[in-house]
């Protein structure tokens, strides 16, 4: 089976954070960049963890581990492995915000919504779109989509 994965390259990242803007937009109700930032509450959290220090920066998303520790640790079944696509996905309706996934994710890429006690964001490779928004809008190919044999 061919699986899609997002690959990042910190050498190419310019730290523009455009990926975050488009991630938020894609996961908003309107899918419109202006409306998403101006008229929507709550605004969805970006599923990207952006890190920067000096000249080094990168934007990291869920790595979609082969044996995902977040799925193993999930108390509710909210975090699950989609067999068909090979992605780790999150079902918000089942989540209780126990933060077990945050405790075990070695990349620290799952974000909590502490107020509403639910996982706020977890990269879904833009499952509803043709192409992940961060990949599509990265101006420098620091974020790329690759296909691997699973």
């Amino acid at each position, binding site marked *: 089976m061919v*699986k899609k*994965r997002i*690959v*990042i*390259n*910190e050498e190419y990242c310019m730290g523009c954070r455009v990926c975050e803007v488009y991630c938020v937009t894609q996961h908003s109700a309107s899918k419109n960049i202006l409306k998403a930032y101006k008229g929507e509450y709550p605004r969805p959290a970006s599923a990207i*963890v952006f*890190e*920067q*220090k000096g000249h*080094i920066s*990168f934007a*990291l998303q869920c*790595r*979609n*581990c*082969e044996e995902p*520790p977040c799925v*193993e*640790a*999930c*108390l*509710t*079944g909210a975090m699950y492995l989609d067999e068909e696509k090979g992605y780790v996905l999150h079902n918000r309706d*089942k989540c*209780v*915000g*126990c*933060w*077990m996934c*945050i*405790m*075990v*994710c*070695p*990349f*620290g890429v*799952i*974000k*909590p919504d*502490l107020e509403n*006690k639910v996982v706020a964001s977890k990269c879904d490779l833009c499952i509803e779109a043709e192409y992940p928004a961060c990949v599509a809008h990265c101006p420098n190919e620091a974020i790329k989509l*690759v296909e*691997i*044999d*699973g």
Partner: protein
Amino acid sequence: MDKIRYLIIGNSVAAVNCVEAIRGYDTTNDITIVSDEEPFNYSRPLLSYYLGGRITQERLPFVNRDFYEKHRVNLILGKRAERLDVSKKEVLLTDSTLLSCDRCLISVGGVPIVPPIEGFHDNIEGIFTFLKLKETKNLIDYIKRETIKDVVVLGGGLIGLKVVEGLVERGIKPTVIELMDRILANTFDKEASSIIEERLSQGGCKVIKEDTIQGIETKGGKISSIFLRSGKELTTSLLIIAVGVRPNLELVKGTPIRVDRGILVDRFMRTNIEDVYAAGDCAQGIDFLSKTNAVIAIWPVAARQGRTAGLNMSGITTEYPGLFAMNSVQIIDIPTISFGITNPPEEEGYEVLKRQDKTKGAYKKIVLKDSRVVGIILLNCIERAGVYGMLIREEIDVQDFKDQLLGDDFGLLVLPKDFRKHLVEGRGIVV
């Protein structure tokens, strides 16, 4: 009598992971699960959320209803495994059914610890332990029926605090009684405990320390007050005993299976008896940090042990890597995550880094030994918790970036570049 290929006793997270592991390699041989509980599946750690009214009973299962059918598991519910004959590989159930098997997993979990209390017996109304669904349902019914307002929780450890979490969501402000000089003494250090204690009392809960319940008094068959060792007396209409759990060894008692605190297992989840495996809260397997066998009664350990057992039972030799203690618990509005050795003994070569941010109410502590992270406490700053856990598991030498471990911007960027690249390289992924 047909022999069962794989017999799993218990139906919680270790059992489910065992089934998944077996079915990954063996799609033909039969699997039977026996459980003394009635529901087809439920997640025990969710019971505190159920108690708090955050979720309904329909949301308690952690697998879909068709899981057992899909994995072709014969599910026997509401019957307890009473006796185990290891020489014949036979298990006798409460209704006298005799099951015979080739390979068996014991994943029967834990039982609540009930300390000796004068005047205590099973028929007093208003006293509960907190472990299984049935008693939690009874507890909720009781709170509603008796319109309970005043509750005493015995035990200020993780289970006690999970109960408190649930009660507070229900609008009840319990009194917590803790034997040690601080709550969460096994999980936290002094600073973290005192932050939590302060938040509890701000939230209207009372914490009584260095004390325990000696006796109880009843009125009309119901609990009415408790007497503490210190001589204090408290009136209460509900007592929840949440001191902790110990491994359930009922089934293995009188068998040649070796036990210590729990059922002793090797790195393949095997007991000393061939084809008999154990996993989860009843098992005592290798602890990654101490390198000795320890009972670590947490969900991720049960899951991994169950999976490892399943693989080995189906002939795929797999070693359990050994995990370490880790917990995530929210106290009122303070999310906390901790790992490993959080309160190291003095003068044994441990180094402690800590930082308290009073404006944010955040506290971070890192325990190092030989330049490796061995323990973490995070209060109100859990966002990148898993990265710290990874440092422990990968035994990364942090000497060169030690000063950055406590920072708000701690993340993968502080790691050496080579390691970071190695880390993000998944199968087929180059960075």
